[in-house]
């Protein structure tokens, strides 16, 4: 519902006027200058006008500037990220953020997963070493911008946690439950906070 209405192939550059604030709401790539109530573009790209959803109090269409190039991915609160664990300590694990959403970052960002953010239940009894090991690839959600040094990440959901890990023998482990993964070469079981991979399309296996 609400297909985006593409304006004629007009490219806009930063600073170009897109319309008046009384007629348009600025979306991504646009902003309102308060002193003259005009909506300007802030990125280079195509102007896209999204009609307002029915029933919303504000009936002005949203104008966005999309396509061409937006700056490289930057972690934002609420976005799902893929990170590689670098350090595991008693109360937190440090990870390098590699992808934000589906885009990879150009240069890594640092994130930390605190003990209370590893899972949703029994958060004071979490053992960091049974949840993550250095080198694991985890899927996490960005809680907040954190402090000067790192973003705060959380794996406290079923679908978040370790996605891929290597066993001590060097093989990629197979998840067997939400706390354990098994090495296919040696059969050894190792403890991790495993992410539940969502149901695949052919999920009608009895």
């Amino acid at each position, binding site marked *: 519902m609400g297909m985006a209405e593409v304006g004629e192939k007009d*490219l806009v550059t930063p*600073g170009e006027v897109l319309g008046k604030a009384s007629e348009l709401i600025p979306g991504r790539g646009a902003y309102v200058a308060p002193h003259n109530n005009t909506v300007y573009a802030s990125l280079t790209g195509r102007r896209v006008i999204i009609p307002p959803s029915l029933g919303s109090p504000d009936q002005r269409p949203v104008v966005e500037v999309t396509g*061409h190039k937006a700056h490289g991915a930057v972690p934002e609160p609420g976005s799902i990220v893929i990170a590689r664990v670098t350090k595991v300590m008693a109360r937190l694990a440090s990870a390098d953020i590699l992808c934000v959403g589906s885009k990879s970052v150009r240069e890594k960002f640092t994130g930390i997963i605190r003990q209370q953010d590893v899972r949703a239940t029994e958060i004071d009894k979490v053992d960091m070493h049974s949840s993550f090991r250095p080198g694991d690839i985890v899927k996490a959600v960005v809680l907040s911008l954190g402090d000067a040094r790192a973003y705060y990440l959380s794996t406290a959901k079923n679908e978040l946690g370790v996605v891929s890990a290597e066993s001590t023998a060097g093989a990629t482990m197979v998840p067997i439950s939400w706390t354990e993964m098994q090495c296919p070469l040696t059969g050894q079981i190792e403890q991790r906070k495993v992410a539940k991979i969502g149901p695949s399309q052919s999920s009608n296996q009895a």
Partner: protein
Amino acid sequence: MAGATGATPTTYSPSPVSKTIKRPIFSELDWVRPDGRAFHQCRPAFLKTGAVNAAAGSAYAEFGNTKVIVSVFGPRESKKAMMYSDIGRLNCNVSYTTFAMPVRGQGSDHQEFSSMLHKALEGAIILESFPKTTVDVFALVMESGGSDLPVVISCASLALADAGIMMSDLVAAASVSCLGTNLLIDPICEEESYQDGSLMITCMPSRNEVTQLSVTGEWSTAKVHEAMELCLDACSKLGKIMRSCLKEAASASQE
């Protein structure tokens, strides 16, 4: 220098310098521009984005003999030592290559130009759109043919737009030199060495706002007005050229 041994001199007199002596300004004759331009004519501008693959955004500008390349990296993680900030940071660096000046010398980092570039750009970038991270702008002047800083500023703003950093508007810059009673726009190296004063304006053309104004030398009010009008006019024309350069690059990459 004769002086009593062991006694420090009470006055300081600089030793005679035998470098190039500035020739007196011709007030009667009119200056003829070496490259044949009129006084109020700018050099033709060549601008191109996407020159550097490794950078998030980049631009190359050639205004006559002034050749500048600017790379933009970011937004990327700030150094660990920096304090937390809920708006983004801008870090600028302008350096000259060893072969940029007519006399080949040491490539140098221009601290002054770096901070002027920072002041010119920070008014235009929407820093709130990338909190906690840093955008690095590195400008390299490959050949210095006069009017370096305005070219660096315009090129840097193009590189930032190419990198997809959110900006309120593009930033265009122009400078005017005062030689006697004449005002010359977009001076070259030789004209800059004879100038009595210079005025540089960086402005955001479509919003008609000035982000930086720098004046050196002696100016009367009327002259300042005239020079500002010249510069603003040149900036708006340069702004149009910059926009068409960006649009060309965007439509070329779409196909």
